């Protein structure tokens, strides 16, 4: 089986730290919202704020990294093969058809991934960050009269809506990581950086699952 080094060290670190922070913020965020009691409101609010700042820092590094390495191009949307990939996940995956997309170093996301991640980066994330910062600095906002009439309830509404979107993304994303040639293949790649090419022509080693 061919192996390809696809996720670099910083990228892996960024991904997993971001994943941990987002899960933490979803858990604490919905506690702040009042959906349940888990760690206590005060602790939840403190954790949520700390995690937010950590994630902002991480993002600054990530943006820098994406532009200096040119990796941002990975998220340029394309319509090529979108339908093919979509039909793979709805039909082909059950009939044993091969994945229509081949991962390369220059193109590590399939067209659906590109679209989904771009959506997260350009829509959900900004929505969360902007509403979250407004939420956090609501007092200063009120004092500055920059956003007179903008009520905390409206800010919270947008923030909560974005959080639900993030939750839905997380569920779908987490599930789709199990759709590699083995259930843990993608997760392994995200940990080690090395992706096994699931080519049907590859000679199978003894004991490997088909």
């Amino acid at each position, binding site marked *: 089986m061919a192996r390809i080094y696809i996720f670099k060290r910083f990228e892996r670190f960024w991904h997993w730290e971001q994943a941990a922070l987002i899960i933490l913020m979803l858990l604490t965020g919905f506690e*702040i*919202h*009042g*959906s349940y*009691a888990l760690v*206590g*409101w*005060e602790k939840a*609010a403190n954790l949520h*704020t700390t995690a937010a700042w950590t994630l902002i820092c991480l993002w600054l590094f990530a943006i820098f990294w994406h532009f200096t390495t040119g990796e941002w191009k990975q998220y340029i949307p394309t319509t090529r093969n979108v339908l093919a990939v979509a039909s793979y996940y709805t039909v082909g*995956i*059950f*009939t*044993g058809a091969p994945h229509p997309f081949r991962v390369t170093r220059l193109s590590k996301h399939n067209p659906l991934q590109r679209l989904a991640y771009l959506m997260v980066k350009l829509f959900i994330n900004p929505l969360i960050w902007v509403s979250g910062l407004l939420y956090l600095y*609501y*007092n200063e906002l*009120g004092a500055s009269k920059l956003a007179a009439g903008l*009520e*905390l*309830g409206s800010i*919270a*509404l947008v923030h*909560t*809506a974005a*959080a*639900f979107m993030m*939750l*839905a993304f997380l*569920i*779908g994303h987490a*599930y789709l990581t*199990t*759709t590699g040639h083995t259930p843990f293949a993608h997760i392994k790649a995200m940990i080690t950086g090395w992706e096994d090419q699931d080519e049907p022509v590859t000679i199978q080693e003894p004991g490997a699952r088909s």
Partner: protein
Amino acid sequence: MRAGLCTMTVMTTLLVGAAAHGAPDPESAKLLKSTSDHAKFKVLEQDFKTGPEVTKACLSCHTEAAKQLHLTQHWTWEFLNPDGQRLGKKHVINNFCTSVASNYASCTTCHIGYGWKDDKFDFTSQVNVDCLICHDSTGNYRKQPGLAGNVVTQPMEIPPGSGIRVKPIDLKKIAQAVAKTSRDNCGACHFFGGGGDGVKHGDMDSSLASPDKALDVHMDATGNNFACATCHMTEGHQVPGSRYAPTAQDKGGAHLRGKEYTTNPTTCQSCHGQAPHKANAKLNDHTGKVACQTCHIPSYARGGIATKMSWDWSTAGKMGPDGKPLIRKDAKGHVIYTAAKGDFVLGENVVPDYMWFNGKVKYTLFGDKVDKGEQPTLINHFEGSASDGKSLIWPVKVMRGKQAYDPVNKTLAVLHMAGNDDTAFWTNFNWERAVAVGMASVGAPFSGKVDFLATESTWPITHMVAPAKDALRCRDCHASGGRLEKVPGIYIPGRASDHAGWLDAAGWAIAVLAMLGVLVHGAGRVIVSRRNK
């Protein structure tokens, strides 16, 4: 020898230490704070027979004091509301003992004067100002009820015919020991508002005479030991911080020593400033909406003395099987019914009610139209809203009552309660006669009929500030069913009633559908992969 040297050193240090402060007596080592020792004044070397005699002596040095006091609410019992309502004890009606009118000799026990026994009192009299009630330091100065604020200097039976002998007080000794006001002085009246210890305010009772830190972090007798006047900083005998014109929101900074201010010195902010929370700065973000008291007074009546939460006058007048006025007590021995006053509900460690308050209070006064309705009549009403820019969320005590009114003229009744005559309710238990005399005393018409209606009065909670560790926690309000559940007009994170129901429903629905989707998809893959094996 070495031990001797040590003793010597200690003794010398004591002596030298004391000398450095100018006090010759190392044992007391106490620097007199005042430049005057009143025990040395010739004019106080008298066997005073009455209060005004003492005042006359005081005024011989403190020439302007009485004139200063004449300007205070303490003297006039009057306050002109900015909106024109004439308020003050003399005019308002409450739902405790209801009104001063027609009960002067009893109520004016707490007047800072001598002899206000009816509506003919001379408010220009200087010698009738009572200096000692505020400046006694012996704790022995006392005014007996029913004497119109006069003091007992001869053995007396009070009330007459009761067989209770009251000890005279030693005015000379008291006058010679006058001092700055203390909690005991102010408390002599303010702890007992409403006719008994802690009855009226809930955040003021005799437990504050010598409180510990948990009860009041500022007045803590073992620590800060604030007097009332530490915050209610008087100047020329004018006492700031009246609840008739409270400062609901203070946007000023902490007052500096030596600098002159026109703003109220009794607010929390006048010492603590606008951003007092150092450890958790997010808390400072609350001060634009929430009064300090809301979080820092977690409950009132915390000192072991119950306050009255409701008072039902309509049940008054019951006689026991022995034909004597009935008295009932609860398991703790607190009186919960008397024939004279009706039924009470008492409360200790009471969680306040919370409401928007902008400092304006509107009263229902004599002559204002009232009627029995679904809602209780508001004896006073705290104005404020989330949006007026002047209000904060304040803790309050809501006192509920049922009190007499004239159902024909639709006005609150003035009750003649106290007095040794044949009309006072407490002696005769006859409502019609007591109200007739009461109404006549204020020149109000009375139909001859008495009925009772539900009333509510509201009192700000601002004393019994707890140490920081006992302040409210986030979850006390950031929750559904929390302390601020009923406060409208503000989004409180964590309070479900503020949520957009559709968003939560849609959001969770999408999350659940996504979950179901991946489960079904995954199950399909498992089945297919098994079949292929």
